[in-house]
């Protein structure tokens, strides 16, 4: 297979940056999953779609808005009524789902090239993201595994909390480099490491 080239490549500078007084209180990384797939169920077929997610990935999603689940190699979460994003480190999940999702259940849309996945981790992760999004990132308001759809100006973003100090962001590929620059510049005051 031909490698998927990251839009961040020339801007992705591994190592420690910014204010070093307190070490790195932020870690940024592009997670480069092999598959990013959107599943959309027809009204009334949401439960059946969640069952397909369980069958294919083993991830159990409850029916609440924004409910999500994460394991070592995959993640899934709801981000809109009847819509989920399923992310897998392996390629080919789109094809797997296309085979499992019938026309009367819903649709499958492969976004593996079109979305860029960025992980923001560290003690200042909540504070850093508060610079961009009008969301309450506190653990009580945004529990682990849950997800939210939001936007920073024109940069539409899906955010899943994948740990107490970690958020996985999915942004449109064309915006990714510009957003990455903003992310890095905004993390400078905390000191950050790009992995």
């Amino acid at each position, binding site marked *: 297979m031909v490698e998927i080239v990251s839009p961040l490549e020339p801007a992705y500078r591994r190592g420690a940056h910014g204010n070093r007084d307190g070490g790195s209180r932020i870690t940024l990384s592009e997670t480069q999953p092999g598959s990013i797939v959107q599943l959309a169920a027809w*009204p009334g077929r949401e439960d059946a779609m969640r069952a397909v997610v369980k069958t294919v990935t083993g991830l159990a999603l409850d029916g609440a*808005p*924004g409910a999500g689940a994460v394991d070592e190699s995959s993640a899934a979460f709801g*981000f*809109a*009524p009847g*819509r989920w994003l399923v992310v897998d480190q392996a390629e080919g999940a789109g094809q797997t789902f296309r085979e499992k999702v019938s026309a009367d259940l819903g649709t499958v849309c492969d976004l593996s090239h079109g979305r860029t996945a960025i992980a923001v981790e560290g003690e200042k992760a909540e504070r850093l993201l508060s610079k961009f999004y*009008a969301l309450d990132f506190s653990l009580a308001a945004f529990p682990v595994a849950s997800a*939210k*759809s*939001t*936007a920073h100006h024109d940069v*539409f973003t899906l955010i899943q909390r994948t740990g107490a100090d970690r958020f996985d962001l999915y942004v449109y590929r064309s915006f990714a480099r510009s957003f990455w620059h903003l992310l890095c510049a905004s993390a400078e005051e905390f000191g950050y490491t790009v992995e």
Partner: protein
Amino acid sequence: MLIACPYCGPRDLSEFTYQGDANRTRPNPMSNDQSAWNAYVYERVNPAGDHREFWQHSGGCRAHLAVIRSTLTHEIKSVAFAREAAK
């Protein structure tokens, strides 16, 4: 202003796009009643008070919402998915 999206919860106005008056009914597509079409396309109620309107959560789940908002106070009286309200 906050709008309580039924999916996403209360969100800042900056995430929403106003999508127009929700009091209109689209005429039968086959209809050639020009006054009905004219009313649908151009006529608006513009009340000083409660107004039913569509807002899209464009910077969020992208669902259209049917909102009742007071044009005098910005108070939002109710929010529902437009899909359900349209049926």
